[in-house]
């Protein structure tokens, strides 16, 4: 296999890395020499260009790949780990899955970089931001291009690190640092599962080396694992497929924010909006879906694991959708929406149709990034106000943002022919028709499919709520009581405990918590920097910000239709089909009524939009009746609080108990005990030193007697009994 045209793929990795380094190295000098405005512009272009260049290289490589027949290449650079029986080389795998992800990451990534040059223009730490962002792109590319599990894991950990760095970008506010810590630590829990899965695979392959169809010492490479697992984990070893699959799924849950491990994602909104768009909508959170696609054979071999994936996916989707209804912060709504859509992707994967999961990844990247960037534009226009209850009728003031977000909204709601509808429909049809995912024989994915229809309705509903509150209705910020300073939204939500996602912000770009904001306001009563006052006129965003929005809108609109033609995406991703086929899609949902899936899903979407408008713009009187549900949903059903209390406080108590009980009680006692035993011996022996002369004399006599006796005995013996 001649891999020489693909050797250039390393450029895709190196370009962002070099970009990150250049930001660090040149950032300070350039800004100092060219002045703040021009310097930042220069550094901004220096940040965007590597990603664009990587995108172009990606396009080239994809073109080369499409011309080959096998569409599966591996480029090895050097041996990273070579120990005894196992060898892990630094290899990049170029196939359709990885190139799809590369295109999405670099394409959407470059658009977001461009957006961020405008959004972060007033940020003091400009180069630092872009170095982190470039580093993130590099790590994500290692993740998707990695040819073996450890390489993927390097990227996995790298994006976790960059997520931490970027969420906590405004680190001087301790709430942001806490959110960053939370993201990293919860991810770690997922990484535990991933690592165990890796070890299980490597060990099981190594132990059964003799019966492997593909014999190689690269035990963790995909091209070695997957064919071997197909043959090996059958019959008596079938349970190992389930265990490995579930362990890897735990890792995916951590990264992709599925049910038990999702609680870092809403807190991650403390980071700047471009970060939320890039990492927590388009790329990092899809790493879990990518992993499942990579090792899909394990899941195909284990109906139980596929069932688990389906159930957790749909549960997360529903749970997050309910919570999204009650959120008032625009970014939080989008965050929960991301969690919900990720659940969708997992339902698709669990049903055996892995390409549907990836399809939704691609379309979701477009419209969710667009939504986040649009939300950023809205926030920018409204002087960093994030509470939707202060918005209203913004379509008059920021038309371009409105137009692009309109497209994204319809896409996520699933209105045909926008992209979201195709991907959702493919997932739901795969779920309904699937016969793979089963818990002990009972079909799980059908139930998931029907619930998914319900979630589609809810998605349309809450997204409509968001759009209606923001762009229609009365201009609620005009009703603000004029204060000497405009940050009075600190008053709200005091009695409802929830994690802070940045309330007040000053010109230096730092967010503060409510208490600190109150202190600042008290001390600086007449600061007029970014007040959202009643007479505020929202302005449209600069071109560096709305150009990416427009591009993403075009993609959201057309990409779905294009990729769905004749199953283009499915055949592109899995040219040889899946190894174990799930059943096809049913023609009718409810037999006998002539309803096809397309009709039902469109009806669901339209209903959702209708209810959304109805309830949001007109339905205030229903609010009190379900007030209890709203509070519950607002607090994430107290899941977050419980988890944090249990782990943080519980962990602290556990540590304290161990310290008191074990460290002080047992270990210290042993050590001190040894010392006191030595001391005890010493005091015992000390009693012989009486200082009493006559006693010493007596002892001398006794000693002398002893010697004499012995001497006499010896002489007696020698003399032969004389």
């Amino acid at each position, binding site marked *: 296999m001649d891999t020489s045209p693909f050797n250039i793929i390393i450029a895709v990795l190196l370009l962002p890395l070099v970009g990150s380094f250049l930001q660090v190295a040149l950032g300070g000098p350039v800004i100092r020499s060219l002045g703040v405005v021009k310097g930042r512009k220069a550094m901004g272009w220096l940040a965007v260009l590597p990603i664009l260049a990587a995108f172009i290289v990606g396009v080239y490589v994809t073109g080369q790949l499409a011309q080959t027949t096998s569409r599966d290449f591996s480029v090895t650079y050097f041996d990273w780990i070579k120990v005894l029986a196992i060898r892990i080389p630094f290899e990049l795998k170029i196939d359709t899955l990885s190139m799809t992800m590369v295109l999405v990451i670099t394409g959407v990534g470059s658009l977001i970089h461009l957006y961020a040059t405008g959004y972060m223009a007033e940020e003091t730490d400009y180069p630092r931001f872009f170095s982190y962002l470039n580093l993130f792109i590099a790590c994500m590319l290692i993740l998707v291009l990695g040819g073996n599990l450890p390489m993927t894991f390097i990227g996995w950990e790298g994006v976790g690190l960059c997520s931490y760095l970027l969420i906590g970008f405004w680190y001087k506010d301790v709430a942001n640092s806490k959110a960053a810590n939370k993201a990293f630590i919860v991810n770690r829990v997922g990484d535990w599962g991933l690592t165990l899965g890796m070890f299980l695979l490597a060990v099981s392959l190594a132990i059964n080396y003799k019966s492997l169809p593909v014999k190689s010492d690269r035990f963790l490479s995909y091209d070695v694992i997957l064919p071997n697992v197909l043959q090996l984990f059958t019959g008596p070893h079938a349970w190992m497929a389930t265990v490995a699959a579930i362990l890897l799924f735990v890792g995916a849950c951590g990264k992709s924010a599925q049910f038990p491990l999702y609680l870092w994602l809403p807190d991650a909104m403390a980071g700047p909006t471009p970060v939320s768009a890039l990492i927590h909508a388009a790329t990092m959170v899809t790493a879990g879906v990518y992993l499942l696609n990579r090792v899909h054979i394990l899941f195909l071999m284990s109906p139980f694991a596929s069932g688990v994936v389906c159930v957790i996916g749909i549960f997360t989707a529903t749970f997050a959708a309910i919570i999204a209804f009650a959120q008032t912060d625009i970014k939080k709504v989008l965050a929960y929406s991301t969690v919900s859509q990720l659940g969708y992707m997992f339902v698709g994967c669990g049903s055996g149709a892995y390409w549907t999961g990836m399809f939704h990844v691609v379309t979701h990247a477009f419209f969710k990034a667009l939504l986040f960037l649009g939300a950023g534009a809205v926030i920018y226009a409204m002087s960093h106000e994030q509470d939707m209850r202060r918005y209203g009728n913004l379509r008059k003031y920021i038309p371009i943002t409105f137009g692009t977000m309109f497209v994204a909204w319809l896409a996520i709601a699933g209105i045909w022919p926008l992209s979201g509808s195709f991907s959702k429909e493919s997932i739901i049809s795969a779920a309904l028709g699937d016969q793979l995912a089963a818990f002990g024989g009972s079909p799980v994915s059908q139930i998931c499919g029907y619930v998914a229809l319900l979630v589609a309705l809810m998605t349309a509903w809450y997204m409509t709520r968001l759009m209606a509150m923001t762009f229609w209705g009365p201009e609620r910020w005009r009703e603000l009581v004029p204060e000497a300073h405009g940050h009075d939204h600190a008053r709200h939500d005091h009695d409802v405990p929830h994690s802070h996602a940045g309330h007040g912000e000053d010109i230096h770009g730092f967010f503060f918590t409510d208490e600190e904001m109150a202190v600042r306001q008290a001390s600086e009563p007449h600061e007029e920097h970014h007040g959202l006052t009643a007479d505020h006129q929202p302005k449209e965003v600069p071109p560096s910000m709305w150009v990416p929005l427009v591009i993403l809108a075009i993609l959201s609109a057309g990409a779905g239709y294009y990729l769905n033609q004749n199953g283009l995406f499915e055949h592109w991703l899995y040219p040889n089909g899946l190894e174990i086929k799930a059943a096809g899609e049913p023609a009718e949902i409810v037999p006998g009524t002539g309803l096809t899936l397309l009709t039902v899903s469109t009806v669901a979407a339209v209903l959702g939009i209708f209810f959304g408008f109805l309830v949001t713009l007109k339905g205030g009187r229903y609010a009190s009746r379900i007030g209890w549900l709203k509070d519950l949903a607002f607090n994430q059903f107290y899941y977050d609080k419980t988890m944090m209390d249990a782990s943080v406080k519980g962990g602290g108590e556990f540590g304290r108990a161990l310290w008191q009980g074990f460290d002080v009680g047992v270990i210290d006692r042993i050590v001190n005990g040894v010392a006191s035993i030595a001391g005890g011996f010493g005091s015992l022996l000390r009693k012989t030193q009486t200082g009493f002369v006559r006693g010493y004399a*007596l002892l001398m*006599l006794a000693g002398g007697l002893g010697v004499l006796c012995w001497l006499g005995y010896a002489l007696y013996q020698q003399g032969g009994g004389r």
Partner: protein
Amino acid sequence: MPSITITPDLIVFVPLALVAALSAIGVVALKNAVRSALCLVLNFFTLSALYFNLRAEIIGITQVVVYTGAIMVLFLFVIMLLNLGAPQLLAEKKDLKIGAGLAGGVILFGVIAGTIFPPLVSVNVIHAPTKYGEPATLGHTLFTQFVWPFEVASILLLVGIVGSILLAKRKI
């Protein structure tokens, strides 16, 4: 039981030995330190007589001159100087040490006697030459064979003098 031949030596020896033994007991048992010292003096005189009995005249004279005449005088001087003779000064209380000491002493006597005496029970023939106790022989030996120990002993005595003067001075 070996037969005991009565010789003039034996007749002289027995009373002297009794006196020596009794005065030795007296040294240990008497409460008054002065009386103890005087018992010791008696002991030394008796020993000197025994040395004469053994035909080592020079040793006997040296014993009287050095031990009795110098050392015991020194002892008595110190006792009287420090007024240590008063019996009430040290009321010896009864303690276990006396019993232990006596027992130890008896055992000591028994062990050594049991080891040494059996092979020597019937020795009573004198092999020493007649003149071995004369001053000429002693002097000759002292200044030829034992001249080195003699010199060292004189240095030792010098050290003793210096030390005792240093200890007894009031001011250095």
